């Protein structure tokens, strides 16, 4: 009984220390703000996802055309729009990075 209670008390103390550890390690931090993605980073993440999705779709179309799942006719019909999607995704990313100005010249 005594041993069990001692072990239980030790367990509770260890848990309290584990929970308090971030405050023990940094009692007076410069900043306690959560490092969240800002709006620009979130926008960039979405654009990167869009780029990867468009490029993966192009790659998959090529492969499925090669395997015969997509006919020549369907391949030609889809290739143009997928390339446009990929190009606009890349362009949007470049624009976000300030590398390329939009086609209409706006900033």
């Amino acid at each position, binding site marked *: 009984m005594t041993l069990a209670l001692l072990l239980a008390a030790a367990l509770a103390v260890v848990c309290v220390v584990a929970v308090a550890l971030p405050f023990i390690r940094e009692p007076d931090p410069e900043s306690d703000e959560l490092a969240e993605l800002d709006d620009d980073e979130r926008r*960039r*993440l979405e654009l990167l996802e869009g780029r990867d999705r468009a490029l993966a779709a192009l790659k998959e179309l090529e492969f499925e055309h090669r395997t015969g*799942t997509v006919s020549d006719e369907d391949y030609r019909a889809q290739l143009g729009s997928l390339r446009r999607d990929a190009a606009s995704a890349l362009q949007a990313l470049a624009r976000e990075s300030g590398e390329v100005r939009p086609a209409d010249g706006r900033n």
Partner: protein
Amino acid sequence: MPELGRAALLVTLGLSVYALVAGAMAAHLGRRRLARSAQNALVASFATTAVAAAVLLGALLRNDFSFTYVARTTSEALPTAYTISAFWGGQEGSLLLWLLVLSGFGAAAVSLNRGWARDLIVWVVPVFAAVSTFFAFLLVAVASPFATQAAPADGAGMTPSLQNPYMLAHPPLLYLGYVGLTVPFAFAIGALLSRKLDERWLIATRRWTLFAWAALGIGQLLGSHWAYVEVGWGGYYAWDPVENAALMPWLAATAFLHSVMIQERRGMLKVWNVLLVILAFSLALFGTFLTRSGVVNSIHSFTQSAIGPWFLAFIAVVVAFSLGLVFWRVPQLRSPTKLESPISREAAFLYNNLLLLALCLAILWGVVYPLLSEAVRGEAIVLGRSYYDFFLRAFGLPLLLLMGIGPLIAWRRASLKSLATTFRWPTGVALLAGVVLLFLGAGSSVPGLVAYTFSAFVLATIVMEFARGTRARKALGATTWPGAFRSLISRNRRRYGGYVVHAAIVMLAIGVAGSSAFDSVAEAKLAKGESMTIGDYLLVYRSLDERASANATEIRATLDVRRGDRDLGTLQAGKNAYTIEQQVSNEVGIRSDRLTGEDLFVIAEQIDPDGSIYFRVFVKPLVNLIWLAGLVFLVGSLITLWPDRREQRRLVARASEVGIPATP
């Protein structure tokens, strides 16, 4: 040591409540140290739950009958392996296992993702903690495994049907599946709460969902085999409410695993996917409620208990909160992309989803109808096998066909000309198989014949996909054919692992159709020396013996088995009379034909004092394909679960482009 167990659970409850409250405050106020502290509390709760589990396991292994739980579920004579399985054999122990797995999965999922998805994780922690708080509260206040008593001389023992090797793996696998579905749920709710609805919650949970789904699938197959060899009624799935309780979340998770591919590729179905995750988790909770509340009569429900109302209340809160949150976030979940054509792979996935959901809801209605009718009319009306069989055929057969159609259609849209080319071979193979089977007499069951024909279509599609894919990889630079095959799988594990899983489902369908639509049964009361026939089998009842094992008296009838002119040896069937448990179980005799997959299945239904026995005998064609399907399913699941280095590199590159760490 029960005090240590109780204290450990109390600390777990405290840590869970802290992780819930501090985690929610940290997420809302944006406080870094508080968020980290809540994460530490969640991880620590796994350690404290493990201590509680170790105390219970120790008590079981010591046969410490001062623990009420140990005295109720084991006895001195119970073999050690089953003493260990008693951990999850009773209500309190199985709830402790739920909490142990939940806190372990929570700690692992949070630790693995708190680098690259740190802004999402802060919202995931309180969701995990909320679920953990519920289970810890149940174990502390309602169903403690550490209740004590004056130790009796011996325990009450274990229900005989649970004294089977399958009980060492079947329940833990189901629990891994049920609890594993908490991970996608926690991340989905965390994403909704935080408005971080980018792809990261899908990427973070993909393998967890696959793992949970695979564990549920394999757990159910093991359970079916347990029912087949142990329960002794001649079947493997009885549409028992608790069996259905495991099937429903599996169906919902299957729908999610398909529809999530549409979201990843096309950015569509975001609301639908979140709803499927909520449904799968809610059904996992409902499954635990059915198993453990004693609300339904089932071979799996061993006790009436007080946890039922708590579970119902928790499920109601989960469903109401989750649906309210989805409704609130619908504007952010709208997709700019639309379905381009009803003849496309995403459309096929959508049809697959609708059928899976329809089957799931039909089963759910079958499960809750007796409960509702009892509540309303005072009489439980049970929907029988014909109800479930009807919906299995109505939704299951088109689902089977869609498994073959989906891979043959291109994403976005496909022309009729293209379809004519890709469908040519599989359709030809299916028609040929149908005609041959009709000629061989399979027309005696139309659903069986349709299932076989559709199965041939799907198998032809799978073979064609692997063959054409390997050829394409060879053309793209692989030096050898095996190299091209390896490259094909390693470059798209989910797709080709998925095809292996499809092959397993086809084998399952063939096994189920063969053993249910084309089986035969014979019954006879035989005295020693008498014989009976079934199909072309001849069985002669030779002798009846009695022997004592560690915890039971075993009575076995020996039968000579012949097929035509061939002597197939002997088969034993009988009963076990368990001394301590005061129960009798059927011990069936099974002779499997490895070449044809057929089983001869003998039940000694009633043994009379004069030695005569009432036998019931089945011949079940192709039934062994069901168990073989389990192995193929496991292989397919492992392929899909295997880490994909290319994908990892892509994710690392993407994370570094945004400036977030790719590792914790």
